[in-house]
């Protein structure tokens, strides 16, 4: 295996990862990300923690310092298995605030401080530089292990490695400006690489234990021998070093930009941590378990002076296992690649968001008087800024690699990075747990701690400063790191206690410490880089409905559902314009400046503006509502008045009719009774007048009966007494009754007796009332020479019953047919026989009450009425409805 063919294999491997990431990105874009969005992918992506340092350096670490290498695994293991609730909290709060990086989280917690974000970014870049250098160095070292005099290593191989990794990071990390900063393709590639590096490492371990040594017992014996030879009393355990290293590695798994990125930013939800809580420590255990066997066997069989950092590779090579060595190389390459790519993506986001864009906004603010730029400028600027940042970060790593001479032990470079980034830890933990932590306290702590770290750890690691002198008996590294962290924590606590937080900080601290959504915080609406916060502010200014609609349309125009559009430059520009329409251009610009991450206007100012505008709008809307309500009430009153007027007119007409119908018989009664009081009235006159009085009194009684009947029917208070009856019997009784009531003329009755034998379910008294009324009317009004009444009965198609009653008289004129069922419908008929004009109105009410109908059938020769009965009486509800009318 020549270095050239290894490079070719690496290129092929990178190409494979390209394809995989590309396919995953496409699937995600097509909405098929869900099936890949599994806890196992998340857990595997966390293995980005195991960089080339872990892959190669752990064995070297073990060879040099014994068991101390375990601290690198113990820290994350303790954090994941012991403090998973804390991680859940971290993920929940971070997702709630849509943070894009550790710098974003810290600055967001401390009042969206742009300075703090820039500072954390600086630490991230400083700490990552040796770390990236370490990856480049490990790949170069690994390549050099394959080099032979015939096949020399290509010159500047690390440059090409760096450029290749930068290309990968740029291609997949800066494709677009995703609002959630998630990179599905990269995550899938990392997960696959996690499997490759684990498989390679386990393969070497298995080969070493069973292929080179004689199984576990032999390996254990070698470990015993080595520990004895190392110090006589076994491997020394330096407590302050162990404590410091476990603390650092535990912090690293949360605060390293790449770890924060996979742990928090790429997490779709906090439940991912349920599986990762045990699976990630298990992954680390597998990786760490085989370190010691490889270290002791390597020390035993490899020539003295061989670099322990390369035992993993040298062992299979020394046995001529080129295929295994190639796999190991690819495993190490995977470790380096995933670390560099994710670090570059995370750091470039931080640099772009917290360095370059605020700088640009500041310049833009200065040039505000000049012509406005296109809104898309910002998006392109962001992407280009990130690409530049990736090149810069990886370039800096390469430079550090060159400057450190490529000789430093891998583990030392890793701990430099860890201890630098750990300066963020106090601010992070205090920010999540202590509401009293303030922005100034956090800045003081981070600045103080980082200064000490720079002087005592970072610069000495570059050889630019001498190692600090520590009191005797104290490990220089542990002492420097603990000092830096202690100063950091002390400054944070002291300054926070003396400080008073600003309104924005208080809002954010409430949200972070109690893990409540910022929207739920009282008085929220502070300007923020989250669309929710903009929506809340817009809601206060424009009213919730209008704001929701505006945001929904914006989201729709971006091809998104819901109410939260991406904060694209175009959206923000439109939003600023809309704001200007509400609060004025100056305030809107100030607000947007704030959104851009810069100070200038205090949150309380903005809250006040929003409050006033919202109050004015509220008052205005209340007035509009009130006047609209008044108009509605007025319209309702007008309508009611018209209805009442119409009802009143109807009532007057009705009372007039009743008055007339009552006064008419009363007039006769009064006149004739006065005659009766005269003593000299002839006897025969007396008898006749008494008869008239009697008849007229009967007429009044009938009228009152009819009126009562009608009012009961119309009010829906009539009681239905249904039963099953033979229609023939009812018709017989009706004919007898009507004949008795209107005797005098002989009517021919034509019936089909057989057809009358139909069972009907109805209220027989009410149906009889209708039949008698109609037959009596026929007898009264039929003026034919040979009067006759025809009665036809039949079942209707719907199962009901129809009764037609017709006479051979003149019938009712077309104009009057519509009136006959009205109350007091006095037809212009001098021949009417004393009826008050209520009979057919009552018939109509009764038939409706029975669920049927009565209708006049025109064109039947004489007057013809059709009485229709339903199969069974209608339910009560209909009558209730009538009553309601």
């Amino acid at each position, binding site marked *: 295996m020549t270095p050239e063919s290894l490079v070719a294999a690496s290129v092929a491997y990178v190409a494979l990862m390209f394809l995989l990431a590309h396919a995953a990105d496409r699937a995600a874009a097509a909405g098929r990300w869900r099936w890949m969005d599994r806890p196992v992918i998340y857990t595997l992506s966390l293995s980005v923690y195991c960089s080339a340092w872990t892959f190669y350096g752990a064995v070297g670490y073990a060879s040099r310092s014994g068991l101390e290498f375990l601290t690198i695994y113990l820290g994350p293991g303790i954090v994941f298995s012991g403090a998973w609730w804390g991680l859940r909290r971290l993920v929940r709060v971070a997702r709630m605030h849509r943070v894009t990086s550790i710098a974003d989280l810290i600055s967001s917690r401390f009042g969206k401080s742009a300075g703090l974000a820039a500072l954390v970014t600086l630490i991230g870049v400083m700490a990552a530089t040796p770390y990236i250098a370490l990856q480049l160095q490990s790949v170069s070292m690994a390549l050099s292990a394959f080099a032979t005099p015939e096949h020399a290593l290509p010159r500047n191989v690390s440059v090409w490695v760096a450029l290749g990794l930068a290309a990968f990071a740029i291609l997949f990390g800066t494709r677009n400006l995703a609002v959630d900063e998630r990179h599905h393709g990269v995550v899938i590639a990392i997960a696959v690489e996690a499997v490759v590096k684990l498989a390679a490492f386990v393969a070497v371990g298995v080969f070493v234990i069973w292929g080179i040594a004689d199984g576990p017992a032999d390996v254990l014996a070698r470990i015993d021998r080595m520990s004895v030879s190392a110090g006589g009393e076994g491997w020394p355990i330096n407590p302050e070093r162990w404590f410091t290293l476990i603390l650092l590695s535990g912090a690293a798994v949360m605060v390293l930009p790449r770890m924060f990125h996979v742990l928090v930013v790429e997490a779709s939800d906090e439940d991912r941590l349920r599986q990762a809580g045990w699976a990630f420590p298990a992954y680390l255990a597998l990786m760490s378990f085989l370190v010691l066997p490889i270290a002791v066997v390597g020390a035993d069989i490899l020539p003295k002076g061989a670099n322990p950092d390369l035992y993993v590779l040298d062992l299979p090579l020394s046995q001529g296992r080129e295929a295994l060595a190639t796999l190991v190389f690819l495993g190490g390459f995977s470790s380096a690649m995933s670390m560099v790519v994710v670090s570059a993506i995370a750091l470039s986001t931080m640099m772009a968001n917290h360095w370059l864009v605020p700088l640009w906004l500041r310049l833009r603010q200065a040039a505000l008087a000049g012509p406005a730029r296109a809104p898309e400028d910002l998006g392109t600027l962001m992407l280009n800024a990130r690409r530049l940042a990736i090149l810069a970060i990886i370039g800096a790593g390469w430079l550090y690699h060159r400057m450190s001479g490529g000789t430093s032990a891998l583990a030392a470079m890793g701990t430099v990075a860890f201890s630098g980034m750990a300066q963020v830890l106090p601010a992070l933990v205090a920010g999540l747990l202590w509401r009293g932590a303030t922005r100034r306290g956090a800045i003081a702590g981070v600045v103080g701690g980082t200064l000490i770290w720079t002087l005592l750890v970072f610069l000495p690691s570059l050889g630019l400063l001498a190692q600090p002198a520590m009191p005797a008996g104290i490990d220089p590294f542990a002492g420097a790191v603990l000092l830096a962290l202690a100063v950091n924590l002390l400054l944070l606590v002291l300054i926070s206690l003396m400080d008073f937080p600003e309104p924005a900080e208080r809002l954010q601290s409430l949200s972070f410490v109690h893990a409540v959504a910022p929207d739920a915080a009282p008085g929220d609406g502070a300007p923020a880089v989250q669309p929710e916060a903009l929506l809340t502010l817009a809601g206060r200014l424009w009213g919730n409905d209008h704001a929701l609609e505006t945001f929904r349309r914006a989201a729709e125009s971006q091809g998104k559902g819901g109410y939260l559009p991406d904060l694209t430059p175009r959206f923000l520009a439109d939003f600023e314009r809309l704001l200007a329409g509400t609060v004025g251009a100056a305030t809107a610009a100030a607000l947007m400046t704030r959104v851009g991450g810069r100070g200038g206007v205090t949150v309380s100012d903005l809250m006040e503006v929003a409050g006033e505008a919202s109050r004015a709008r509220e008052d205005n809307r209340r007035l509009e509502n009130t006047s609209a309500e008044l108009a509605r009430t007025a319209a309702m009153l007008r309508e009611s008045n018209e209805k009442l007027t119409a009802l009143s007119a109807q009532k007057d007409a009705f009372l007039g009719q009743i008055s007339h119908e009552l*006064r*008419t018989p009363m*007039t*006769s009664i*009064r006149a004739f009774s*006065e*005659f009766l009081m005269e003593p000299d009235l002839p006897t025969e006159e007396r008898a006749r007048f008494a008869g*008239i009085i009697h008849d007229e009194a009967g007429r009044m009684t009938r009228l009152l009966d009819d009126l009562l009947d009608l009012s009961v029917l119309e009010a829906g208070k009539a009681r239905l007494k249904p039963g099953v009856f033979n229609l023939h019997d009812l018709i017989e009784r009706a004919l007898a009754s009507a004949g008795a009531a209107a005797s005098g003329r002989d009517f021919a009755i034509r019936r089909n007796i057989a057809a009358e034998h139909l069972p009907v379910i109805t209220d027989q008294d009410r149906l009889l009332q209708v039949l008698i009324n109609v037959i009596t009317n026929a007898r009264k009004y039929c003026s034919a020479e040979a009067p006759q009444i025809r009665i036809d009965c039949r079942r209707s198609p719907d199962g009901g019953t129809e009764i037609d009653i017709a006479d051979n008289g003149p019938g009712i004129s077309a104009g009057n047919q519509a009136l006959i069922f009205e109350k007091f419908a006095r037809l212009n008929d*001098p021949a009417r026989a004393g009826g008050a004009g209520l009979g057919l109105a009552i018939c109509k009410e009764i038939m409706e009450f029975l669920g049927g109908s009565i209708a006049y059938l025109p064109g039947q020769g004489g007057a013809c009425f059709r009485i229709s009965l339903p199969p069974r009486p209608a339910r009560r509800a209909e009558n209730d409805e009538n009553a309601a009318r």
Partner: protein
Amino acid sequence: MSVDVLLIEDEPSIAEAVRFILTRDGWGCEQWPEGTGALERIRALAPRMLILDLMLPGRSGAEILADLRADPALAALPVLLLSARGTANLPPGADRVLPKPFANADLRAVVRELLEQA
């Protein structure tokens, strides 16, 4: 025999009572039972006064009264209006109004007064 009073009334029993009263007082009385043709009947009989019911089949008493007052030949004819709807909203043009039911003595007094004027 000259017609002193023409009674336009559709209720047979009321018409009989009015006729009974007037005939006993010695007035000549004719009756017409509906609104239709009432005006022609008045012209044909040329009574000295008119007793007019307000609610009639065919044409109402108010319509007949209006026609009467519009006709120069009949404008001065004394008219007693009988109303079964009280005395509110009565048409103009009647010399006297009696609401139904009325006292026989009132009817006699009003008729005598109107006939003495005529």
